[in-house]
């Protein structure tokens, strides 16, 4: 039998105003198991907590019921109080007589009566509480970062800096991601490569960091602290540890007409290639779809010219298995396809381009060596129209665009407009906008400079259609402030395409059992208070996989994710939530119903030997819950017909006792 202490809080007049606290503590005195009952002005105050601690000692209490505000408010507080008094923290139950009683009922007798019943229910439950001890599991002190863009790079560097080994898995042949393709970065206009490439080099040189480039995550098992991950290293037909990145093979490769994805297809590369000069790892990769040697066994030039002997046409995909304590998702974004936007003639004219293509066109390492030339005729464009919100804030058609704001377009468009006017003052630049959104340090000033100092024409309105006519692009647009329809003959139209999560994110989320929103962005554990954690324990979010963000934001989130990972890896053991499911092996018949409803894959089956009553033994398949993975939802408990599966802290008996107490 428990020895229960009941503590009724007045919460000033918040509770005492509508509930006769004295009557409540008196009434609860006589409940089974209760040996002490009192009330006090503020139970959560230091004095109140001391009162509880003293009562525990004086009356040898084994359980505590606090009738106070919502457990969502102070359950943790009173659990700590109990622990300080030497009780198991899970021997505390809260009767919510504020939010769900005194605040919603006006009359004292009614409030008091209900408070007593709620108190009785809590007492009935505590009577059946058992001390719970959180399970412990060891932590593999190694982190996995999926995605090698700026988010992944920053996270990996920060984790490695704290002394933990990190692996980066990047599906491209090099890390760097989207930022490597950018020219300048807003609002300070530093060159992207100048600030990114040193970080890439840091990654390459950090002995705590391993890069699996040209690789993908194939399988994820295990749970927080103990993930088992299979990484598929795709065959790049070049021995990574032998290749010096000299580029002789690239020079000699006869297959020179392969669209260069790094420049978004605006120029060509060879079949064996290094994506860009500062690639990390700086290793050549053979594109099997275009290499003659791999396709029909004729050529082999690269192998001949490779002094290091790094070429290996027989290389196979390889699966690497590794254990990790934490996983960071940094899968990034892509601009959406423009195929559905016929009105902008993207597929009809080479001179209608996306902003990312514009970045390459202005980049010194790009297809035009940094000169702004039209893709169609390589002439200098004199009139450029930028269209904002192409596919962003588009609620009309899910296939066409995205309902959300892509967040970065306003700023990069201002940057593009400004830089164009700076380098080519003879160019007329029009920006059509719905709203200009520039929250951020020095952002609005930046945009205003584009207008005021650089003379960019910002027009409130939208482009309705673009029609290629001769070497011009006929742009028809509205100017809402002048209430006019504009017709502009442009040389180049730049579309600020909405961004969307990378296509690899969805299958990855399934592997990780991490949740996603309808737009395929990863969901954070709490939108405000836990923004870099996924609801799945041990999985963290970095960068645009969680939602659109710019570079400074991505980097700060990457750092935040790293600090969460470091916090996790710094622990030798993980203590879990002790309110987890538990299977009574004697009753379990191994039917697998529970396993099917478990959202976390926390239930597995083992063959266990039982001694039967007639002294024989029998081997039976029974469910076994991994307490480190179980989050305690209880779905399994109802799926289980025999009642073998129960939930600690919310056991069948406990809930029934509450029902009984309420229904007296």
């Amino acid at each position, binding site marked *: 039998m428990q020895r229960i202490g009941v503590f009724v809080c007045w919460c000033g007049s918040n509770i005492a105003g509508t509930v006769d606290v004295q009557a409540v503590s008196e009434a609860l005195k006589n409940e089974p198991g209760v040996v002490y009952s009192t009330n006090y002005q503020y139970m959560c105050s230091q004095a109140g907590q001391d009162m509880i601690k003293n009562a525990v000692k004086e009356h040898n209490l084994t359980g505590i019921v606090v009738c106070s505000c919502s457990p969502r408010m102070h359950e943790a507080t009173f659990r700590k109080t109990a622990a300080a008094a030497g009780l198991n923290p899970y021997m505390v139950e809260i009767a919510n007589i504020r939010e769900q009683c005194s605040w919603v009922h006006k009359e004292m007798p009614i409030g008091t009566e209900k408070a007593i019943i709620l108190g009785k229910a809590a007492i009935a439950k505590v009577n059946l509480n058992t001390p719970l001890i959180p399970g412990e599991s060891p932590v593999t002190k190694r982190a996995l970062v999926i995605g090698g863009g700026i988010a992944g790079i920053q996270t990996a560097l920060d984790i490695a800096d704290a002394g933990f080994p990190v692996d980066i898995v990047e599906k491209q042949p090099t890390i760097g991601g989207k930022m490597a393709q950018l020219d300048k970065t807003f609002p300070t206009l530093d060159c992207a490569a100048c600030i990114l490439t040193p970080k890439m080099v840091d990654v390459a040189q950090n002995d705590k960091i391993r890069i699996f480039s040209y690789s993908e995550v194939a399988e994820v098992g295990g749970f927080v602290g103990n993930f088992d991950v299979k990484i598929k290293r795709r065959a790049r037909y070049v021995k990574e540890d032998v290749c010096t990145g000299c580029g002789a093979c690239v020079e000699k490769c006869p297959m020179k007409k392969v669209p260069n994805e790094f420049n978004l297809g605006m120029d060509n590369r060879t079949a064996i290639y290094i994506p860009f000069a500062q690639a990390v790892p700086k290793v050549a990769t053979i594109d099997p779809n275009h290499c003659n040697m791999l396709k029909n066994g004729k050529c082999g030039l690269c192998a001949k010219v490779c002094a290091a002997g790094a070429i290996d046409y027989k290389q196979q995909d390889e699966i690497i298995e590794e254990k990790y304590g934490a996983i960071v998702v940094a899968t990034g974004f892509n601009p959406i396809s423009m195929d559905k936007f016929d009105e902008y003639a993207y597929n009809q004219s080479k001179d209608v381009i996306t902003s990312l293509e514009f970045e390459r066109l202005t980049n010194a390492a790009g297809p035009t060596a940094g000169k702004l030339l039209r893709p169609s005729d390589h002439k200098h464009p004199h009139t450029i129209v930028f269209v904002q919100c192409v596919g962003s804030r588009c609620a009309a058609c899910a296939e066409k665009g995205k309902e959300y704001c892509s967040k970065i377009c306003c700023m990069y468009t201002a940057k593009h407009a400004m830089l164009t006017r700076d380098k080519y003052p003879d160019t007329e630049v029009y920006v059509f906008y719905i709203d200009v959104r520039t929250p951020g340090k020095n952002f609005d000033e930046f945009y205003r400079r584009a207008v005021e100092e650089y003379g960019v024409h910002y027009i409130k309105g939208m482009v309705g259609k673009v029609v290629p006519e001769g070497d011009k692009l006929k742009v028809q647009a509205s100017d809402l402030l002048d209430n006019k329809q504009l017709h502009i003959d442009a040389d180049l139209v730049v579309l600020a395409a909405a961004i969307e999560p990378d296509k690899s994110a969805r299958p990855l989320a399934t592997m990780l059992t991490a949740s996603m929103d309808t737009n395929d962005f990863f969901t954070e554990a709490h939108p405000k208070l836990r923004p870099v954690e996924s609801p799945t324990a041990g999985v963290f979010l970095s960068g645009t996989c969680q939602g659109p963000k710019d570079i400074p934001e991505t980097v700060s989130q990457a750092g935040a994710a790293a600090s969460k990972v470091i916090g996790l890896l710094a622990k030798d053991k993980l203590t879990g939530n002790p309110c987890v499911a538990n299977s009574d092996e004697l009753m379990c018949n191994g*039917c697998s*119903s529970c396993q099917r409803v478990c959202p976390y894959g926390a239930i597995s089956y083992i063959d266990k030997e039982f001694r039967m009553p007639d002294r024989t033994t029998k081997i039976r398949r029974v469910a076994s819950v991994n307490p480190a993975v179980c989050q305690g939802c209880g779905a399994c408990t109802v799926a289980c017909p025999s009642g073998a599966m129960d939930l600690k802290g919310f056991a069948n*008996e406990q809930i029934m006792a509450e029902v009984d107490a309420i229904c007296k």
Partner: protein
Amino acid sequence: MQKITCEQLIEKAVALLNDGTVSCVLGWKKGEFDYDITPALFETEEELKNEFVWNDFCRANFSKYLISKTAKCEGKILVFLKPCDTYSFNQLLTEHRFDREKVYAVGIPCEGMADIDKIKAICGDGICKIECGEKIAVSTIYTDEPTLIDAKDVLAERCINCKSKKHVAYDELIGEDGDVIDSGRFDEVAKLEAMTPDERFAFWQNELSRCIRCNACRDVCPACTCEKCVFNNPKSGVENKSPANSFEEQMFHIIRAFHVAGRCTDCGECSRVCPQNIPLHLLNRKFIKDMNEFYGEYQAGAEVGSRAPLVNYTTEDLEPGEVFDRGNKDA
């Protein structure tokens, strides 16, 4: 009359026993009377030849016996499965209740089983002999001549509404396989659904009040294979040995039906064994019918490893409040 003869089955069993494929045979044997055929385990050719029976009274579904028998038997067990039994067989495999490797399943066609109550209604009590041939010949101590009854006239309810003559699991099939039948098994449920709630309540009170909680329905049920039933477990909070009142009668049957929902293959054993003739199968069929209508057709046991509706979901499922709207529409 059954299409397969008893001799055919004995011959098959003896052959498999003698060539070592199996070490014992789960089959039927005559009980105290000609109509109460009971399940039995045969280990020798002699036992088989003397005692094995196959006729219109071999009603028992052997699937559930496999759980205890496979655990006990050294070698493989030969089991004869009627089409409806194969569904239970598969369902138990889905739930990992016995080792498939330890069973040699022979599918046998079934023309439906006779209901002894229906026979007694025709020829009265005092049955001393029954012979199954073209017709069922029933001799009683009160009549001089045996009464000849057409098996079709005394089919058990579950056989009249047979859902399938197709075997969904077997190692070997004797005779021809049949098809899944579009039966009227939900008609009775629909009739009840069409009643007013008061009528339904009265109907079930009349039925369930007769329950003596002998647990026969549960103990025969191939879906009720818990190591310990919640109703036997004092810790579950619902344990009771006898129903004290109408509430407990209802609770037992609601919870039991809920626990087997999505797992019940509609084999009808529960109603067959009920000493009080309570139409328990209607509760199970209600769940099956509902789930078919709410979540798409699902037949438990049709394939091994299928995911039952209650351990599955889609994001577009109907809301609990909507089940009644549908009901009204249908009515």
